[in-house]
């Protein structure tokens, strides 16, 4: 009888594992990794439905679309040889494109149900937008024999210049940021690529201590690894001194018409707004002169209104994340999608994605689906994240039940832009632009840095993951004040040291070690999945 019961139990469990996947504590995800590379020995069985979903709607669907997008955005089948030429010529291109699916795997590890679906749509949108941008670069690239007509209609700008500045020409031109794909996206997908650029910057005498993001951006130019796709360029001082320094070196390399559009540093001062608005107008004048195309105010207004729609949905997302347990987007998808979208500006793909995610979000709220049931702590991540380990949140949830609800970059652009009058529109655009990535709540004035406490309360978080970018002078310069505040407010905060894109300074494994130490020695907690505590992924993408 007992044998029979045992067999029945085992069979029941096998059916349950087949259908639902293993319960969280029994997954042993760390056993799936190959040593050093972090590649999988075999894929995780997430249960029948989710495994099929992953295979069809994430793996196959995205591989198909990755080819489809090249053809779609590159102007037909002729885009395929052009893409191959690009891969051959530009180090970052192939190295970012080929391991993309592993980037999905890392970010979506252990996810189930609606969390898997909603987060994957965010990844899909970023992939598509990345392909659109680099195909535009290649199609206009004079070095690869690209179209001269497209070249004339593809202005370039620093990645910290908000794409919205070019809205008045989006019906005729397509602006492409210089470093968004070669640097920013690359770091997330394949963290080896950027090291070469950092070394290149240091090889001409730049010291190792300035922000490695700025160093890497310099290195891309020093290595002549930026396509020749743009007739003129708009630069910015954002977010810090290093960005200004980078502009200096880049200018010598680019050697073409350049408009510097610095933003005021004291952005809370009402007196600076008029100055900033005038800078935007001067920039528009420069673009008109360089392109020979007048502004289209209707196009500007249309794009701003569409961008406002994106913002309004973001607010809906925050509302659900802050006040319920039903938010279906994981920490890394939330952070990357939001920073990408808010900086890039209005694009069709964001609307398509938001529509899909909205459905999932509504379903989760309506049916009270908790996508992260093993949450032990609701975490808010503050300051600038390690780009080479943006998916730490996936690991932290799987290993410790630390659920990263929201992060600083997501909260940066907390505004819509009025379009009722020209003056209001310009005023709001100026403010939006001043709140540049890493500026408003990081290297900007102290007032906004400490908004952390308000957001902690608003999002009902009980723990802070305090990013400690070792080479960010702005954040290093307030280290002690944060320490004081954490103590005074009795807040559990884990300092996560990192060097933005450079994994050699603090490795992923060291970051995990720091979190593990805090969770065991301070929180006295046991891991949900002990196989994830220690593993070597030093050679991983």
């Amino acid at each position, binding site marked *: 009888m007992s044998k029979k019961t045992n067999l029945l139990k085992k069979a029941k469990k096998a059916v349950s594992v087949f259908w639902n996947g293993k319960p969280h504590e029994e997954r042993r995800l760390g056993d799936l990794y190959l040593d050093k590379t972090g590649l999988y020995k075999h894929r995780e069985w997430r249960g029948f439905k989710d495994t099929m979903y992953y295979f069809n709607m994430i793996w196959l669907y995205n591989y198909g679309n990755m080819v489809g997008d090249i053809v779609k955005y590159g102007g037909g089948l002729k885009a395929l040889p052009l893409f191959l030429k690009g891969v051959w010529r530009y180090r970052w291109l192939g190295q970012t494109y080929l391991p993309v699916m592993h980037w999905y795997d890392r970010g979506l590890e252990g996810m189930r149900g609606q969390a898997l679906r909603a987060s994957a749509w965010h990844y899909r949108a970023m992939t598509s937008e990345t392909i659109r941008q680099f195909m535009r670069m290649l199609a206009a690239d004079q070095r690869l024999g690209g179209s001269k007509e497209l070249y004339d209609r593809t202005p370039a700008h620093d990645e910290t210049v908000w794409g919205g500045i070019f809205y008045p020409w989006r019906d005729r031109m397509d602006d492409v940021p210089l470093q968004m794909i070669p640097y920013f996206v690359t770091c997330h997908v394949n963290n080896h690529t950027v090291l070469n650029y950092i070394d290149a910057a240091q090889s001409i005498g730049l010291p190792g201590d300035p922000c490695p993001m700025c160093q890497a951006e310099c290195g891309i130019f020093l290595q002549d690894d930026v396509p020749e796709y743009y007739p003129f360029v708009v630069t910015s001082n954002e977010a810090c001194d*290093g960005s200004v*320094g980078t502009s200096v070196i880049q*200018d010598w390399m680019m050697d073409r018409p350049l408009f510097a559009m610095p933003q005021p540093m004291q952005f809370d001062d009402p007196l600076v707004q008029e100055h900033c608005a005038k800078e935007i107008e001067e920039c528009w004048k420069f673009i008109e002169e360089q392109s020979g195309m007048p502004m289209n105010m209707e196009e500007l207004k249309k794009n701003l209104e569409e961008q406002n729609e994106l913002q309004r949905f973001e607010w809906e997302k925050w509302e659900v994340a802050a006040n319920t347990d039903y938010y279906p987007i994981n920490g890394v998808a939330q952070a990357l999608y939001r920073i990408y979208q808010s900086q890039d500006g209005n694009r069709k793909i964001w609307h398509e994605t938001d529509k899909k995610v909205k459905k999932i979000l509504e379903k989760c709220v309506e049916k009270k689906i908790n996508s992260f049931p093993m949450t032990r702590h609701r975490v808010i991540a503050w300051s600038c994240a390690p780009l080479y380990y943006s998916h730490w949140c996936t690991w932290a949830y799987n290993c410790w039940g630390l659920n990263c609800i929201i992060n600083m970059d997501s909260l940066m652009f907390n505004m819509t832009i009025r379009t009722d009058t020209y003056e209001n529109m310009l005023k709001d655009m100026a403010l939006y632009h001043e709140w540049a990535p890493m500026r408003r709540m990081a290297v900007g*004035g102290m007032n906004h840095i400490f908004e952390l406490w308000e957001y902690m309360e608003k999002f009902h978080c009980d723990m802070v993951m305090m990013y400690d970018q070792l080479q960010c002078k702005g954040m290093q310069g307030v280290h*002690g004040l944060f320490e004081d505040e954490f103590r005074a407010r009795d807040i559990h905060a884990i300092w996560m040291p990192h060097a933005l894109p450079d994994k050699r300074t603090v490795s992923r494994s060291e970051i995990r070690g720091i979190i593990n130490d805090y969770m065991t020695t301070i929180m006295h907690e046991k891991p949900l999945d002990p196989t994830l505590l220690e593993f070597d992924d030093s050679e991983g993408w």
Partner: protein
Amino acid sequence: MRDLKHLIRMEDMLQQANNELVREAREEGRKAIGYTCYYMPEVLLDLPGCFSVRLRAPNCTTPTMATYYMSGRTCHYGRSLMERALEGGFNFLDAQMATETCTVTCRFQEHLQRMNIIQNPDFFVEFTDIPFKKTENSVEHYKKQLQAHVLDKLHEKFGIDTSDEALLKAIEQHNEVCRLITEIGNYRKLAVPTITGYEFSVIMLTSLTCPKDKILPMLRETAEELKTRQPDIKPGWKIKVAVAGAENDDPDFIKLIESCGALVVADRYCYGSLPGREEIVVNEGQPPLDAIARHYLNTSCCPRFMPQDLMRGRKKYLADVCREYNADGLIVESNKFCEYWSYERTIDALIIPRDYDIPTCSIEKEYINSASGQLRTRFQAFVESVELKKLHGQTAKKAD
């Protein structure tokens, strides 16, 4: 050369921010206004009733408390100022006129604003936003900022007269200081200069850190003295160099360079006189604040300026300075963790020798140069290489 009469007293005054002349001025009831950057026009802080003090933290070698607040990975200068403030060394200040012109000094000043560090009940910190360009839009913005955050605040808090007449008076005094410093500095242009870089650095720094009216008599006497000063029969230097770069308020750094055989004849660095000691010109009918704003924006050669022509123009300015002061080479320095000058130094070291054929030595230093042994080796090697180049040049000329 014969010793300059006031040099030792001036050296003494540089030993602490709250020096005897600052104390004297405060006893007279004047307000001490601190600042850190050239973008904060000192002339505005030298209005009758107050005086400017450009902050330094001499002899601060281990900023331990400041390192807790600002970590060990920020510029030593900013941290040293913070340390000095925490030690009570800036308690004489009545206000700090702050600028966010580089990250770490900004953070230092934000700490002054947020924490109760300066033990003076009237003390306040006011930030001014500084533009990155020199366009009309920038000038207008700068003027508005100076009016609202400097002049209006000084009037509101201390009752300082900020009328045009008062400004013109301050400009007059400021211009006299500039004239004298320029006159003194011009002796560095001679084939055999009659003033050393170290001496000039002490004089220049004194003019930045002491009340102007109190330093003027000494400057006048020094200028007079230099008219008849004779150079050494056998000068102790082998080459002449210009020094450019980041914040440097340490005359001993100049002394170190000179002890290696390189006479410093031009000082294009923060706290130096190039630019910094040009007279402010007020045209007829021009409001003095307009003249001041234009002057400070137009004369500045800070690497913070972003437009293409200014980025490139800075290199030419450096080359022109080297030629005007007959420098055989250029030393470009940056403080460790200074991002602006890390980049500027790197590009200077590539462009200046390539486009202007000026030998360039690029070094990274600390605020207080405890690593002088390493720097000495670098400077000695540079002096030798420039000397060799000169010798080769002479031999080639003879052969022609």
